């Protein structure tokens, strides 16, 4: 890494930490509350003004040219305070990457050249649906005046806020699904209420009903799984960075609490069973940070394979760490006034990112067979 790159990392690190502490933290509890309609507008506007929604874009569009290491740095710092905001940014990056994989650079550039509006910078995407696993419910039909989409697209992240969305739909005659870009402000698009979900409450998710809605085919017909697979390989590490942020936040709060809470006449941090719990947390946090750093610095053929290998255990460990984070705080950890219970929900929710966790593991070992 040369000096310029080091300076860029430092800048991103300090900017994202400052944003988390000063902008995100004051709204965290409020953003997490029912009806889970999304982050406070102030937070969004600030993130937009700091170009966080452009991070993954090519340099020509004001981005960092798809530098996964830099994206991970930002997401980890943000997720330490609130994983929902990090998930919003990752969803945007996922949608952008699908367009890049489909070779739709001109269309992407068009979206980001519309000046000044946050609404246009957001692209909704079904971040938790993997078309490699399950066939989309949404159907596409070729008509004289273009493609029309009908049916339900479940779990559209940011579907209630974004002007553009990318969905997966299938032509009845095709074996594989295709990707479509849809403008949300059409009469035939019916956006549902925010989904009541386990975690990531401030990253609003909705089900969207389409009725003969015009859609623009992204890339080529029947290649959604291919685009998705490539996107997964490029961005899987970013999901792990969010998990690592949750872990770091959980550990920091648990450590702090254990040094002030007194039971049995001394600080609980001095009881060896508590020390063991904290040690397990600390080791998993550090392991996650090292894995992400290592895989993030890789390039070439091995980069995707190693990114997947790094990410899957980190997502699992985040659930363990967040659970122990509650346990250290006892009854207080279970209450919404403390952030530990939120991290516990967020970590478990995040495990379904990019699809069903066991299938991701099976997919990984299949790729090992191929390499062997």
């Amino acid at each position, binding site marked *: 890494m040369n000096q310029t790159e080091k300076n860029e990392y430092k800048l991103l690190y300090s900017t994202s930490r400052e944003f988390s502490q000063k902008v995100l933290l004051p709204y965290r509890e409020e953003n997490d509350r*029912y*009806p889970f309609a999304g982050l406070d507008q102030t937070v969004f506007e600030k993130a937009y003004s700091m170009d966080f929604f452009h991070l993954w874009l090519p340099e020509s569009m004001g981005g960092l040219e798809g530098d996964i290491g830099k994206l991970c740095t930002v997401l980890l710092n943000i997720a330490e305070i609130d994983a929902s905001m990090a998930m919003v940014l990752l969803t945007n990056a996922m949608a952008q990457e699908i367009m890049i994989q489909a070779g739709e650079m001109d269309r992407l550039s068009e979206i980001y050249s519309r000046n000044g509006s946050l609404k246009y910078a957001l692209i909704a995407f079904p971040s*938790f*649906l993997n078309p*490699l*696993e*399950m*066939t989309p419910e949404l159907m596409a039909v070729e008509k004289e005046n273009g493609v029309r989409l009908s049916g339900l697209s*479940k*779990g559209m992240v940011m579907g209630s806020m974004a002007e553009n969305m990318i969905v997966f739909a299938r032509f009845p005659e095709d074996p594989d699904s295709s990707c479509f870009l849809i403008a949300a402000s059409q009469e035939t698009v019916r956006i549902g209420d925010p*989904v*009541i*979900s*386990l*975690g990531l409450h401030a990253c609003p998710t909705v089900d969207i009903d389409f009725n003969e809605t015009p859609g623009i085919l992204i890339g080529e017909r029947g290649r959604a799984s291919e685009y998705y697979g490539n996107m997964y390989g490029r961005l899987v590490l970013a999901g792990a960075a969010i998990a690592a942020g949750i872990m770091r936040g959980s550990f920091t709060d648990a450590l702090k609490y254990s040094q002030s809470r*007194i*039971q*049995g*006449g*001394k600080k609980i941090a*001095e*009881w*060896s*069973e*508590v020390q063991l*719990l904290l040690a397990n947390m600390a080791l998993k946090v550090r392991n996650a940070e090292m894995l992400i750093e290592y895989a993030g610095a890789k390039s070439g053929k091995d980069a995707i394979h190693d990114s997947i290998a790094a990410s899957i255990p980190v997502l699992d460990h985040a*659930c363990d760490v967040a*659970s122990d984070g*509650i*346990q250290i705080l*006892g*009854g207080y*950890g*279970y*209450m*919404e*006034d403390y952030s530990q*219970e939120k991290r*516990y*929900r967020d970590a*478990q*929710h995040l*495990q*379904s990112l990019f*699809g*069903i*966790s*066991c*299938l991701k593991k*099976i997919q990984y070992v299949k790729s090992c067979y191929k390499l062997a």
Partner: protein
Amino acid sequence: MLKKTFFPGNADPSGLSFPDMNCNLMAISRQPRAITKEVRKAIKLAREFNETVVRPNALDMDRKIHEDPDYLPWEWVREANRQGFYTMWIPKMFGGKGYSFTSIAYFLEEISTCCVGMANLIGVHYLGFATLIAAWNLALTRRISLEVIKGEKTDTPCLLDFAITEPGSGTDTSEADLADKGNLACHAARENGGYRVNGTKIFISNAHFSTWHLVLGYEDIKKPSDTFLFFAVRKDASGFSLGRKERKMGQKACPASELILRDCFVPDEQVCVDQRQTANLSTSHRDIYQIIFDSICSSSKAGVCSMGAGISRGVYEEVLRFASNTRINGSLMMNLEWVQCRLADMLRNVAVSRLMYAEINFANGMFGLNKMLQIKPLYYLFRYLPIKVVQVLSAPMTRFPVFQKIVRKMQFDWKKREELERTTGWASMAKFTGSDLAVENCRIGLSLMGQTGTRHENRVEKFFRDSKLLQIYEGTNQLNRLEAFKSLIGRNRYDIQMFEDR
């Protein structure tokens, strides 16, 4: 150092002796067979209640409390009261329906398959009742029981709760060794005819619904285990008030609240047990603290384990449904080997939890709080005689102090240490096993269902949020492991130190 001040035991310190490991075999000939019928009846009642009240409303109730955290589900409490669930496990000698305590665990498992918050709305009431029973204050038990029964008849629920946790002490309260080093603050100053109490209790389940609060206080907060007292405070007592209702991650139907006692006067008639009442016993007041606590927890932890079994089962049933209706790459999930193996793991977890609470039930029936009421002649006498006849026959026991002295002599002075340790050890193991497996089943379920599992309408995310609390209340699972060690492994070994970590 683990203090051994009451009757020395001669049990195998490994925790693997025949009676330790075979409570079920020992219970075969000694447990009344009719208990099985009671269990079947309790399960049937729970299933009917689930079908009509809990299952159709559980998600709506959870959502409603997400929306309005101060909402109190009185409609559920009233319905449970109408169904007679608040008197079902009160012994007939106190006017209740007299179901065996064994059957409540099976009942709670059933309710928990739909909503563990609802299970707690019933279970916590009996935690309060177990406090009265464990202190063996027969007159006060009768008085409060009659009010509960009246509440059922008049459609005005009269519930009990159990208040021990304080802002500065959670784990500290459940062990005499820890209490003496702890930061306990609920002070009860002796006055003519009673106590003047000052203190705050937190995280008290059902407090907003309860008429009677069973509270733990201390005459000298520097010597808590030597000066403890349990007392009952009525919701309308002067100096008593309810503080905030907590915002919990799950189990939202069951409120957890703060109790505030400011110069609250508690008359002697409402003291369950204090130093004066145990002065004539040969067992020290400190050891009675531990006997009472262990007796209460041996019952309540069976309940927590059964609620864990209920959650494990609830998740398993949802995942089974999902796997039967979902295709992955064209294959039905149910036909994929890795799914089949995970479902087998989940079923195993349900079975293990159920076996664990069955075993502590056997232990409690043979050696614990249920022992007296499961002596066959007494059991059948109470079972087949009408409530009113049982009440007349047992009236002298609750009215004349001499009977109370005899019962306390039996329960505190003649209590065999190895029996108490056996029930305490099994209860602790059941508690951490049932709750850990419930959380594990939820995690397996979510990992199988992906995004579908994280959606509220599919129930599994609610089970996941609810299950975590089982690892915390009734002593954190870390403390329960230490209690299992102390009761089954560390006993009779004088080189063992507990709560002395350096």
